[in-house]
């Protein structure tokens, strides 16, 4: 169907996954892996509300849109198989931070191992490295300096 519409070459290009997540500073992201928009709302120092908006692809077959909704039920609903364990680890980290046993939160994982991505004019790192967290704080520092 896609090949008929777009031609074999373009169809192949579309179907070859080059997925990434886009973070719109400070609290919104567009997630490409299972298509949705995520908004993170800080409510209190120990409470954060995360809202997931599934995206309906116009013109896509209903089965594809249902597949996306079904996947989000499994990955990101309050009863999902993935997010529930994530929330549990956030809650435990929060509990640990309340002890005030350390003055710093370490976000140095992967520091110095970032690589330039010349094609995209960007910097890349492994998904498990904390480059994104460091970039967030760097941006925050920049905005705060501008405002001062």
């Amino acid at each position, binding site marked *: 169907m896609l090949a008929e519409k777009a031609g074999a070459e373009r169809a192949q290009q579309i179907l070859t996954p080059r997925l990434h997540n886009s973070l719109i500073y400070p609290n919104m992201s567009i997630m490409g892996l299972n298509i949705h928009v995520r908004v993170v709302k800080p409510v209190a120092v120990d409470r954060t*509300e995360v*809202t*997931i908006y*599934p995206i*309906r692809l116009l013109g896509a077959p*209903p089965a594809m*849109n*249902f597949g996306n*909704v*079904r996947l*989000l*039920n*499994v990955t*990101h*609903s*309050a*009863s999902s*198989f993935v*997010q*529930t*364990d994530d*929330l*549990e*680890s956030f809650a435990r980290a929060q509990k640990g931070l309340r002890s005030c046993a350390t003055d710093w939160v370490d976000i140095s994982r992967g520091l110095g191992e970032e690589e330039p991505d010349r094609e995209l004019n960007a910097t890349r790192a492994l998904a498990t490295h904390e480059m994104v967290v460091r970039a967030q704080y760097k941006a925050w520092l920049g905005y705060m300096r501008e405002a001062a």
Partner: protein
Amino acid sequence: MTGVASGAPAPPAVAGIDRVPFEEFLIHEARLLDERRFREWMELFAEDGTYWVPAVPDQASPLDQASLFYDDRELMKTRVERLEHPRIHVQTPPSRTAHLVGNVLIEQADEAKGEYVVGSTVIMVEYRDEAQRLFAGRQRHRLRRDGTGLRIVEKRVDLINCDCAFEAIAVPI
């Protein structure tokens, strides 16, 4: 028969059908959940059975909008295997629950086909990790007679607070 995909007001009860076996079925289901016998709970569902907890009031369909739960037997199996896993973080420590099912009405009955829609009110109190919370709402079971027993073809739970922000919900309601 029109299924249970509607949060519309309950129709009047169907006359002339003994409510007791249906009430006993719902009590048995609640007990399996409270005793964490999730595999036996899953087996109450027909092979084509679904378990649905909408995320907005009067949600028309589970297909075009996210839900809190929308499991077919395949997903239910994964859910149950996860709940049985000894290192599932969100159930360490495990939830303890008490379900109360009441206000049971037989809303539709097709004796020839052996199909029934049973409406009820459910309250689940959950205690875990020093916190207690409450879930409440209307539920509708579409049931099919299977030999001498009943199987769930569709279970829909409309929580009164279904569209609020939730902390993790690890166990079925």
